[in-house]
């Protein structure tokens, strides 16, 4: 009896911890959504839709799952994250700044002449940015190369990558889809930010990806499908990948383009357009009032 009570108490404590952790992550994601809106409004151009769809996953990665040292960006055995959908870079800059890679107010220099924060990611100039991306389809192959290098060095780090749904129309994505299982890269964890939209319209109209889960399974990947805004689900999907050996991991994350700002949600116009100052104020106001869930 005593033992049962003890273990119940322990699992209750674990649950409390989990609840606390999820709240912490939600609060960070909410704060970073506001930063994304602020920096895009300040820049006057950029991609809010795909940044807001990705930010919950990036928050979980940088504040929960990744092994990294913001003050030591070149730490040899750090886990790597490659943003293959480079246009979502405001989300990446936000998590990097919040993590302490560079001062958070630098975010307001996004896309300005002379700023290190280029419109798409550039490795070598921004601490924490691992690869130069933005020409779609290449980041996944780069992540594969890092995962192969890690394997050669005794599997010392894991490699995370995020691809877009529009990006999945690139042939190179499927070249890597074919090769990563061949190389047995179970240290490669890829998120598909499936927000269903791209510049010219909804993916289902532009070039349908479905059945997308079947495709990745057919290419012999370990595939999970989750709600990409559900923080506990993101955490557990990443944790689950540790138990599946011999295959690379694809986490199909169903997301909402522009998530968190009602007038942007699932509105294709917000793929690559910055909010005006007034729109930004409305968006930030809404985000501040939201619970973050």
């Amino acid at each position: 009896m005593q033992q049962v009570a003890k273990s119940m108490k322990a699992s209750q404590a674990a649950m409390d911890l989990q609840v606390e952790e999820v709240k912490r992550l939600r609060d960070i994601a909410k704060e970073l959504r506001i930063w994304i809106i602020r920096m895009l409004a300040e820049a006057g151009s950029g991609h809010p839709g795909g940044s807001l769809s990705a930010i919950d996953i990036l928050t979980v990665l940088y504040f929960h799952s990744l092994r990294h040292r913001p003050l030591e960006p070149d730490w040899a055995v750090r886990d790597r994250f490659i943003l293959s959908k480079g246009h979502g870079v405001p989300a990446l800059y936000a998590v990097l700044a919040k993590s302490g890679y560079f001062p958070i107010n630098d975010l307001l220099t996004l896309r300005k002449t002379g700023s290190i924060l280029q419109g798409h990611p550039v490795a070598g100039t921004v601490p924490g940015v691992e690869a130069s991306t933005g020409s779609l389809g290449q980041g996944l192959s780069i992540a594969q190369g890092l995962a192969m290098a890690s394997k050669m060095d005794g599997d010392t780090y894991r490699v995370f990558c995020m691809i877009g749904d529009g990006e999945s129309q690139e042939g190179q994505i499927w070249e890597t889809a074919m090769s990563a299982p061949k190389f047995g890269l179970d240290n490669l964890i890829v998120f598909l930010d499936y927000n269903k939209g791209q510049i010219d319209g909804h993916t289902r109209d532009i070039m349908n990806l479905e059945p997308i889960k079947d495709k990745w399974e057919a290419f012999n990947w370990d595939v999970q499908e989750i709600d990409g805004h559900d923080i506990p689900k993101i955490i557990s999907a990443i944790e689950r990948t540790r138990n599946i050996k011999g295959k690379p991991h694809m986490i199909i994350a169903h997301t909402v383009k522009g998530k968190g700002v009602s007038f942007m949600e699932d509105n294709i116009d917000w793929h690559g357009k910055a909010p005006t100052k007034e729109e930004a104020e409305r968006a930030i106001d809404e985000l501040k009032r939201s619970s973050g869930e």
Partner: protein
Amino acid sequence: MGGKATRQSFGEAVAALAETNPNIVVMDADLGKSTMTGTFQKKFPERYFEFGIAEQNMISTAAGMAMGGKVPFAASFACFLVNRFETVRMSVSYSNTNVKLVGTHAGVGIGEDGNSQMGLEDIALLRPLPNFTILQPADDLEARQAVAWSAEHKGPVYLRLTRQKLEDLHGADYKFRVGKGDVLKAAKGTADVTIFATGGVVYNALKAVEELEKEGLAVNLVNIHTLKPLDKELILSLAGSSKMILTIEDHNIVGGLGSAVSETVAEAGFPVKVRRHGVEGFGESGSPAELYEKFGFSPSKIKELIKTLVKK
């Protein structure tokens, strides 16, 4: 014909270098039998990666490998490799990754397979890309040293290699110096013509020049093994003491050595005529020897061309 194909020199050199450099990896896209990586494959199977017919994937993966501290040599035919241009531009040049692209089967010298397999625009494509070093060795010894230099150099390198065997140009004491033209013939005083040649045609140019010297012509002949960075200093110093300049390359005449030399000389303001000799348009099928006749790269055709130019 003696000599060795520079792709063969590469295959042997990379396998030898890997003995002491554990970071060297080799990648192929289903052309390993032609890029001559067989020795490496046998000796280092755990460091050899076959991508199948997917060059873009191979190139970007090489970039990732380089970010992870490896020294990848990614090999294919020059045309299939470099013509994945956007991938090369972003994953290798812009990212300044330590990737060695090995493009074999340069030029019409490959022969029967014809134009679709010939690398004819690769130098033109790569010259604008920052961070790249572009090397085209002219014989076995130079090729081995160029491969060794590439393995040590931190940054993107392109090695342009031949399918066909190349006669030895250099003695055993030759030292490859990156970025420095290799003067094979130096005229005394003002030269009737200064020839800058690169790759598979250098030996034939030398044969032609040797005959012309007997006929009393004063000729400078320089082997330009490094197309980028170009040895501008040498080019300009010779331009100042030559009646004319001739460039010879088994590559499209647009964008390659001829263009690079013309840009250099024109910008410096030299009033010297530059004649670019190379491939105009596309290649075609035929035996390598017949194609070298047809495209004007045989010793006799090069000699003929020089005589015509000098007369004018």
